[in-house]
Each structure stands twice: as C-alpha cells, then as structure tokens.
C-alpha cells in the first residue's frame, strides 16, 4: 500500500493548490456583480428564449457504444500483459475475440449508427461556386440566383433555376434576398 503514498501526497498538493488559489482570487478580486454580468454569455445578445430542451440521440448512442468498447478494451489489457506466456494460443483467442468485435462494429457502421454528417441529399447538389482557378487563389463569388438554385423551389425564383427534386424542404428558411 505504501507505494500509493506519493499519489496521495501529490493529489493533496494539487487539490490544495486549486482550492487555495480559487479562494485567494475570491478574496483579492473585486466584487460588484450586476445582472448583465451574471446573465448567460451569448455574445452580447440578450437571451430571450429557453435553451434547447433536448440533445440529439446520437450522443447517447455514442456513450452506449463506448461502454461496450471500453469493456472490450479492458479485456485486452490482461491479455497483452500475459501475451509472452500465452503465445500462439493467446493470439488465436484474441483473433476470435476481434472477430466478435469486428462483427459488432460492421453492424454499427452498416446501420449508420455512427454517422454524424449533416443530412445528405440523394442527388448531389449542383456546384454553385466555381473551383479555384490556376491563376488566382481568390474564390469567385457566385451570382445570387446561382446561390438559390440548389436550395429549394419557391415562387418567384428564377425560371432557369431547376429545383433539385429531392432537396430537403425547409419552409421556415426563406433566404432574405428574395421575399423581403
């Protein structure tokens, strides 16, 4: 047990340091709070609505998958320590274990459980900016109607701009350049 003494000593030192310095700064620093200072920081905009109530289920899913991977990794360590004694038998065991892990992993990936990307379109969106040219490193700014072309169909849009058939509809987001 004695070998853990240094950890305990260092932990006490570090915790003490953090506590004392926090305390010292509270004593030394000025104290004149007001409502603007204690409001949630949102880059100067006064928050007028409650923050989002829920988080995407992906985060939960990742944590859940991690629990299982963590257990699998924990299994690997005793194996790794003893590997030089287990020899090829150990390798065979680990190959079998890895196959189980791989099958689970393939299931996850092929089910799209680990996809975080923005919602993708079935048909690729048209290119609305030209690629860089060899002569200049400045990107060309597209014309406004070209910007709208790939987004969504709406009345008043330019007739030569074909609406992408499978573009996700977002009725709330009318670009400011057209309607108003």
């Amino acid at each position, binding site marked *: 047990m004695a070998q853990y003494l240094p950890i305990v000593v260092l932990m006490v030192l570090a915790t003490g340091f953090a506590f004392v310095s926090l305390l010292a700064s509270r004593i030394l620093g000025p104290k004149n709070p007001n409502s603007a200072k204690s409001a949630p920081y949102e880059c100067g905009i006064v928050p007028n609505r409650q923050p989002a109530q829920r988080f995407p289920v992906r985060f939960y899913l990742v944590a859940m998958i991690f629990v299982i991977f963590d257990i699998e990794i924990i299994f690997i360590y*005793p194996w790794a320590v003893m590997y030089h004694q287990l020899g090829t038998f150990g390798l065979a065991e680990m190959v079998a274990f890895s196959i189980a892990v791989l099958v689970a992993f393939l299931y996850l990936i092929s*089910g799209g459980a680990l996809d975080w990307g923005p919602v993708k379109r079935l048909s690729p969106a048209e290119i609305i900016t030209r690629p860089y040219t060899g002569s200049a490193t400045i990107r060309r700014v597209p014309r406004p109607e070209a910007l709208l072309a790939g987004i969504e169909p709406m009345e008043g849009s330019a007739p030569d701009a074909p609406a992408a058939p499978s573009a996700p509809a977002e009725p709330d987001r009318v670009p400011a350049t057209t309607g108003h």
Partner: protein
Amino acid sequence: MGGSHLALVHGLNVAQQIAFFALAGAMVLSALRMVTTKNLVHAALYLTVVLAGAAGLYILLAAEFIAVTQVLVYIGAIVVLMLFGLFLTRAPLGTGQDLDNNQRWLAAIIALFLFGVLGVTLQKGFKGTHVNAIPITDGGSNTAAIGVSIFHDFVVPFEVASILLLAALVGAVVIARRD
C-alpha cells in the same frame, strides 16, 4: 523478518483500517445523498463518489486491476452515459424538478431488506475467515494473474462473454435507433 517487519505490517494494517472507514463513511454518506437529492445531475455525481469509493476499496484489497476497471467502466463510461441520458431526456439546464414520489417508504423497506440479506449472507459465508490482502510482489502483478485466469483457465467463458457483448451492442443500437 524480525519484529520490525511485523510492526510494519501492523502499522500498514492500521492505515488500511483508517482508509477503509474513511472510504466507507464517504460512500454511505454519498449514497444517502444520492437518493435524497432532488437534482438528477447531483444524484449522478453522488453515485460517482460511491463508485470511486468502491474503487478505493478494491485498491485496499490489493485488487488494482478491478479498481482500474471500476473507474474506467463505471465512472468513465456508465455514469457519462447516464449524464448524457439526463441531458437527452430532461431539460438539461432546468433545476429543481420535484423528484420525490410517495413510494419512498416502500423503497426504504426494500433497501433495508436487501441490506439484511446481503449482510447475513456475508456473515454466514465469511465469518471468521481471514483473507490475506497482500499484493502479489513476486515479479508478477495482479493484472497478469487475471490474464492467466481469463485467457488460460476460462477461455470458453471469455469467448462467450465477447458474444454477449456483441449481442448487447446490437440490442442497444436497435433500441436507440428506432425511437
């Protein structure tokens, strides 16, 4: 091995006793606070303290690898999962929800019953047994001993466990995806 060594072992034992009671006290207090607090995140944190205390007890019993597993899996993964679950379902920034309900006496009775059963079982099973909690020092370590027993003596259970984990993963994803 003279008297000084024995005295040393004795001194260590006293230190272990003190550490045990400090840890156990902290665990009991946090466990009580965990069920009485009205803030879900606080409850999760008190649970973390209980789990960390259990890890400390494992270290006192010279079972370092179990202690590491306890921290990595329970504190590092499962409580994080719980916190994500809280963020996911409850208003994450809202405090002061009323978490009490009128079943607490029933829960208390069940908890006491469980405590009684476990206590009696431990008493019957280990009464008077002296368990030597002295770390393995002859070149090997606890982890190595566990490695031998998992990968040499209990190979089939280990592979079955890996299949079990596979099933758990698939099940978790199926449940979470079709919400």
